[in-house]
């Protein structure tokens, strides 16, 4: 995307869904996720005035991450268990299937619960990678740690998820 003349509406259109799903998978709660997405877009709206064209994704996900951390500090909120609204969409799980297929159609709430049990740093890295689709370098830029740290967090996060869901 061209950074020139970017408006918050553009960002909402192109990244709103990703921001919302990032927040949802980190909190496990759709209402908190919506509040967070709104907070992020308001920060974007205020921040675009001084935004220097460059790594847009780094800038946006740094804002998103900070909004989430500020929210945790403000509310001292713990992640909540997900609502059962995902069960319908994952109805495939009732169909008998080989083990390796079963693993991939595991109920969403199980996976969400496992995500919420991960240490925050691992969950953040895994969600940025596999839900948002950021590269390791983009995640490292947003989080402010070396790429090697992100490698480690993603691998250990996935290892713990696999353990919990086996």
């Amino acid at each position, binding site marked *: 995307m061209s950074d020139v003349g970017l408006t918050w509406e553009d960002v909402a259109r192109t990244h709103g869904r990703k921001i919302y799903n990032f927040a949802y998978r980190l909190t496990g709660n759709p209402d908190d996720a919506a509040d967070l997405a709104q907070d992020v877009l308001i920060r974007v709206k205020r921040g675009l005035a001084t935004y220097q064209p460059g790594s847009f994704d780094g800038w946006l996900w740094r804002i998103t991450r900070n909004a989430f951390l500020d929210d945790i500090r403000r509310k001292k909120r713990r992640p909540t268990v997900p609502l059962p609204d995902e069960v319908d969409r994952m109805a495939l799980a009732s169909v008998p299937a080989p083990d390796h297929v079963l693993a991939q159609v595991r109920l969403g709430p199980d996976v969400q619960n496992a995500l919420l049990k991960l240490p925050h740093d691992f969950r953040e890295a895994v969600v940025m990678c596999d839900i948002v689709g950021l590269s390791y370098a983009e995640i490292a830029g947003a989080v402010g740690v070396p790429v090697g740290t992100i490698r480690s967090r993603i691998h250990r996060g996935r290892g713990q*998820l696999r353990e919990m869901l086996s």
Partner: protein
Amino acid sequence: MSHSGELLSAYLDGELTKAEELNVVGHLETCTRCQTELGDSHEARAMVRALPILDMPTWVTSGVASSPVELPVRRRPLAWAAAAAAAAFVLVVGFATFVATPPAIEITFTEISNTLRLPASQDGLPPGARAVVIARSSDGIAE
């Protein structure tokens, strides 16, 4: 030879350098432990990627559209009011002190308004009135 460990997820994600990738591929040919670990990482990734992607509620953007650019916006007025009561400490020390007896420290209402980002208006104050306000706030903005 040491195991590939955390390089395995990076390998899966196409995040290794060419040299690292050659090493991992070579190691995987003979190490069943790393083959299993790679399979575990692959399955965990597939499960997370299979989570449904939800649509953002439309009220989110309408709330952003109506928010002013220059002021922090509190999304939940009641929750914010409670937090503000705890965080902000606003004390009106003096009010309606007349010009004939100037206070030791003079702070005009306009200055206070600017500091607190309140509307700079003296409407409703008696002529010559001064308000002395001491404000403390955790984030520097008392509202």
